[in-house]
């Protein structure tokens, strides 16, 4: 016995960086919805960036430890506490047996990541332990963690270092209003001209009906000139689909591989991780950029990243 879930939080799952190369068999990538935050947690512990972590959603869990660990919490700030004493985000924290870590609600962002100095043991499916709830794959029995669940860990080879505690500057992007950069999707021209202008001048809000599969948006309806049902087409994480009702859906990391609604916009790769931090009622506005500009921005972001 290594860790016990005292309370589950809203939806706490085990995630790594996801499954690659199986979309042709209908298997989505999954993995952390905000991968840079997941990687940062592992990076600060000097662990392999793909190590499994706990992904917490809106309200975090409470955990009781039965061994000593170092841990790091990144992503949305859920006011983490050890034995009721506040601890810092994005810092290596040491815990000892019988310590209780409790996370609360967050007011900005949606997901937090808890990485541990030991490796979390979970079920491998196609090279990843990421939990995919719709088909109950990965994680522990493919499920979100519930009260009383026991998580086993084993020591890992890498030596945990706390050097990174010194001066790691974090660009905190968490807010309740987001600018998301987008490029034109393959069916962008299905959108009526009047609607094209409105998309980029109006504000959308994130619906309560949002999850790891997708964020549904509420706002000025997008009118399409072509209402024909499309034959099923490949989709991608960050594809903005527009069904007949005009309410766009941003496809998330657990989204289906194929779909039949027009792909009107695509979130630029440079902002793709932000969709994992959208919370219900957040406001969104879209800025359209060219695909070349999007590539430059992504390369810039990549070269600035410490990991």
């Amino acid at each position, binding site marked *: 016995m290594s860790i016990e879930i005292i309370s589950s939080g809203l939806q706490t799952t085990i995630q790594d960086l996801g499954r*690659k*190369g*199986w*979309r*042709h*068999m*209908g*298997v989505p990538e999954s993995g952390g919805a905000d991968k840079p935050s997941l990687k940062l947690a592992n990076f600060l512990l000097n662990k392999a960036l793909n190590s499994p972590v706990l992904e917490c959603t809106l309200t975090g869990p409470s955990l009781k430890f039965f061994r000593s660990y170092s841990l790091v919490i990144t992503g949305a700030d859920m006011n983490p506490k050890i034995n009721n004493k506040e601890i810092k985000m994005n810092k290596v924290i040491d815990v000892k047996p019988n310590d209780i870590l409790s996370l609360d609600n967050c007011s900005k962002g949606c997901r937090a990541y808890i990485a541990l100095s030991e490796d979390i043991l979970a079920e491998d*499916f*196609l090279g990843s332990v990421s939990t*995919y709830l*719709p*088909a*109950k*794959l990965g994680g522990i029995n493919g499920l979100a963690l519930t009260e009383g669940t026991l998580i086993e860990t084993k020591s890992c080879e890498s030596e945990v270092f706390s050097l990174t505690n010194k001066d790691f500057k974090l660009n905190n992007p968490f807010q309740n209003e987001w600018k998301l950069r987008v*490029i034109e*999707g*393959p069916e962008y021209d299905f959108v009526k001209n009047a609607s094209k202008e409105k998309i980029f001048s109006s504000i959308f809000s994130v619906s309560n009906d949002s999850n790891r599969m997708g964020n549904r948006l509420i706002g000025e309806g997008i009118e399409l000139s072509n209402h024909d049902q499309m*034959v*099923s*087409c*490949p989709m*991608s994480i*960050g594809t903005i689909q527009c069904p007949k009702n005009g309410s766009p859906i941003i496809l998330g990391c657990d989204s*289906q*591989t*194929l*779909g039949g609604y027009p*792909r009107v916009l*695509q979130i*630029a*790769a440079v902002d793709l991780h932000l969709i994992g931090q959208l919370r219900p009622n957040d406001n969104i506005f879209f800025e359209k950029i060219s*695909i070349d500009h*999007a*590539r430059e921005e*992504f*390369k810039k972001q*990549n070269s600035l990243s410490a990991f």
Partner: protein
Amino acid sequence: MKSVDLSSISEFSENILLIKLNQESPYSNNSSFFLALSAFLREESHWIEVVAAEESIAVKYNDIKISTSKAKDLILSTIKGFNYKEESKTEILLHVPVYYSDEFGLDIEKITKTQSVTYEELINLHSNIKYEVKMIGFNPGFAYLGDLHEKLRIPRLSKPRINLLPGSVGIAENRTGIYPFGGPGGWSIIGRTPMKLFDNNNKNPFVINPGMRVKFDPINKKEFESFNY
């Protein structure tokens, strides 16, 4: 090959290209052409994902390592070596037992009424065809099989269900399919197979694959319950 050239490759996102046919297809069956071409492309190690839909293929590449024009060239040069012969496919026929019943067939009664068929007719119409795998996707291992008999063609449910049982057999438009893991689904459900369509011990854990044909064999409740593999 004439049907794919540079003009038929477009950009879906910064690191995904879409391949379509740029003229009237010379093939009677586009979906099997795209499935075969996607499998051929997947053999090259350049690609992160190669996903076939019925009328296009998405190819994802690492745009930090490969430029877009290089990716397009690689696709075209690979396709040059692709020799597709519609007739010469050797097909494996997979028999899938199905218990057609009200017990698991959530929509079977409704369909008999809207399509004016008896239960027996519905079962015969659905199980007498050797279906072709048209496409795989939507959720893990879900194969779009076709074509469904015209008498059974109905639209998708207006409101998808959230949690289907694994092995549920559904129909929609001209397609039928089995939900290997259950989960959400918008197709009308007519029965359930006890067969496991997935084996984690295999390198490719999925039982239904492109290039196969699938035949449904009706079974009764007793056979469903005693089924063992």
